[in-house]
């Protein structure tokens, strides 16, 4: 069961929340919508669910054979939320506070029209089965206020699954949990998805979460999709500077590319084969702190060590370029930091082992 989102546009007053979004979610896929707050990812999720109406565009849902229109802007067809049969997990869970865990999970079955409603015995069986699936059957008689955040999260998921949704949508599913529980729950979600294979889309602003859990990641920014790809593609071959910056800490250098070398300040650094390297072009170079090598007399830029902070197995080093063109952040393994006897105020060489090159668009057009 797949979803096709075609040219979806949504404005809130003068604010363009979504600008012509195209997206295909394949059958049984687990997709992450990743981006900073205000990028439109939650709006897109709510539009897929039917909680929000787009200004124009189309949303198609494909079951086994023929497609079913969920939204069609031209003749303003819009299937109501309650007919779309989606499971939606809210950021703050939205559990019904006056109902027990059992009644929360049973709600979707009990509100069905009489002709489709299962018997109480069937409901009971089904609810307990779901509670066992989320490993919380022992909490059936509790109220939401008596549960921990992680438990509420799992109950919200069980409630959404109870109606046998065609698609599962999760809004910042781990956003409100502390770091340890987040990590456990996201692995658990991944395993659960592998078991159930229900087409799922989740929204997150946490790049680690998206990269670890999703089959494919959709990186969004300012109402547009920046890149769609597998976690490896996104991380190793970011399509835009935004994607590169959003996926982790970065250093930015301005310079030129020529003869397969990056010329940054006084230094020339050999570029890996697949990077553009034909003529002399102005470019921006990105590198991650852990891809920077520090040495006393190797190649690279000269920089002065401003400060260093130990964090677990690595040392995070702040440096200032000698040529005055800005700061550099580096992460050095602790052993090499100690072996090389680096210290503050020393002038050392900064060598980026990997550089991602983005040629400035206007210069690229000129050449």
């Amino acid at each position: 069961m797949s979803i096709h989102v075609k040219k979806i546009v949504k404005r809130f007053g003068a604010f363009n929340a979504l600008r012509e979004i195209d997206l295909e979610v394949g059958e049984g896929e687990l997709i992450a919508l990743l981006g900073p707050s205000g990028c439109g990812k939650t709006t897109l999720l709510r539009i897929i669910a039917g909680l929000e109406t787009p200004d124009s565009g189309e949303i198609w849902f494909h079951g086994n054979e023929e497609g079913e229109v969920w939204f069609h802007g031209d003749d303003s067809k819009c299937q109501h939320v309650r007919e779309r049969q989606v499971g939606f997990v809210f950021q703050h869970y939205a559990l019904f506070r006056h109902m027990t865990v059992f009644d929360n999970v049973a709600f979707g079955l009990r509100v069905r029209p009489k002709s489709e409603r299962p018997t109480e015995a069937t409901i009971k069986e089904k609810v307990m089965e779901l509670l066992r699936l989320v490993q919380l059957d022992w909490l059936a008689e509790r109220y939401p206020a008596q549960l921990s955040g992680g438990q509420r999260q799992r109950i919200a998921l069980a409630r959404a699954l109870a109606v046998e949704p065609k698609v599962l949508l999760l809004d910042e599913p781990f956003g409100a949990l502390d770091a340890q529980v987040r990590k456990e729950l996201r692995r658990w979600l991944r395993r659960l998805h592998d078991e159930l294979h229900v087409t799922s889309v989740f929204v997150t602003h946490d790049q680690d979460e998206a990269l670890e859990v999703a089959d494919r990641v959709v990186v969004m920014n300012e109402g547009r999709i920046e890149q769609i790809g597998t976690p490896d593609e996104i991380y190793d071959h970011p399509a835009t500077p935004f994607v590169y910056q959003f996926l982790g800490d970065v250093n930015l250098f301005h310079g030129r590319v020529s003869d397969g070398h990056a010329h940054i300040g006084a230094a020339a650094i050999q570029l890996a084969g697949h990077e553009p390297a034909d003529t002399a072009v102005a470019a921006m170079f990105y590198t991650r702190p852990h891809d920077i090598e520090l040495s006393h007399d190797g190649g690279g830029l000269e920089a002065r060590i401003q400060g260093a902070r130990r964090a677990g197995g690595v040392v995070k080093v702040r440096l200032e370029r000698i040529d005055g063109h800005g700061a550099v952040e580096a992460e050095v393994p602790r052993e090499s930091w100690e072996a090389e006897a680096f210290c503050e105020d020393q002038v050392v060489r900064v060598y980026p082992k990997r550089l991602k090159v983005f040629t400035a668009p206007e210069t690229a057009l000129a050449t």
Partner: protein
Amino acid sequence: MTSQAMTLPRVYQVDAGPTSESTPFRRLLIAVALTFLAAFLWLPLAAVFVGALREGLGVYWEALTDPDALSAIKLTVIAALISVPVNMVFGIAAAWAIAKFEFRGKSLLITLIDLPFSVSPVIAGLLFVLLFGSHGWFGEFLAEHNIRIVFAVPAIVLATLFVTFPFVARELIPLMQEQGTEEEEAAIVLGASGWQTFWHITLPNIRWGLLYGVILCNARAMGEFGAVSVVSGHIRGLTNTIPLHVEILYNEYNATAAFAVATLLAFLALGTLAAKTLVARHLRGHH
């Protein structure tokens, strides 16, 4: 021993925080508050009961079971029985609209809900006389069709409705705004209809706030004097409510009977206070 005790951190009293005052000042504050309460609340309350029972229980009972008194009680109960449910429906509808939707004229609606608080009840009464009185806008029409509104039960109900209508809405608006719409959205995504969502999700979430509003609304409906006084015409046994009956008895120098009937209002006040306290405890517990 002593040196060890010296190194222990000093234990502060729980209430000795930076916002607390010195003991004499605190005592003074409490004394002022208690004196005020005694002078303006307890003393009058005691006076009402003393005045009512001055001539013994027999006279007290007679004053309450007097046909005019009974009719005043009946009218008061009728006015409350009509205005409380009507305001409940209006209050839920208004609070729902204000808390869960965006629409034009929303701030105007919020302002208008408060109108009865800012308008003197006497003006509210006059308003109905102007509309429905014999020289009023609809006076001729009503006379032709032989419908009596002013100086009759309908005007009393209308005046009561007017002065009580903010109570339920005022109580529910902040509560519903705080709860937001996520639970309703969750219910709808799960396939619930609008009515099922209201009945199973919204109403249970606001029930204590609603009850609180209803208690206040009821107290005001039964105790209202000004607006009702203007439209009532003070016809004994017909258009008198309890507060109006008290006034009539007092003006006839029948102080004991006046106090006796007034004890009913005092009981209403005490009952309202007790119910309010109980409900408020639940309201806090559910947050």
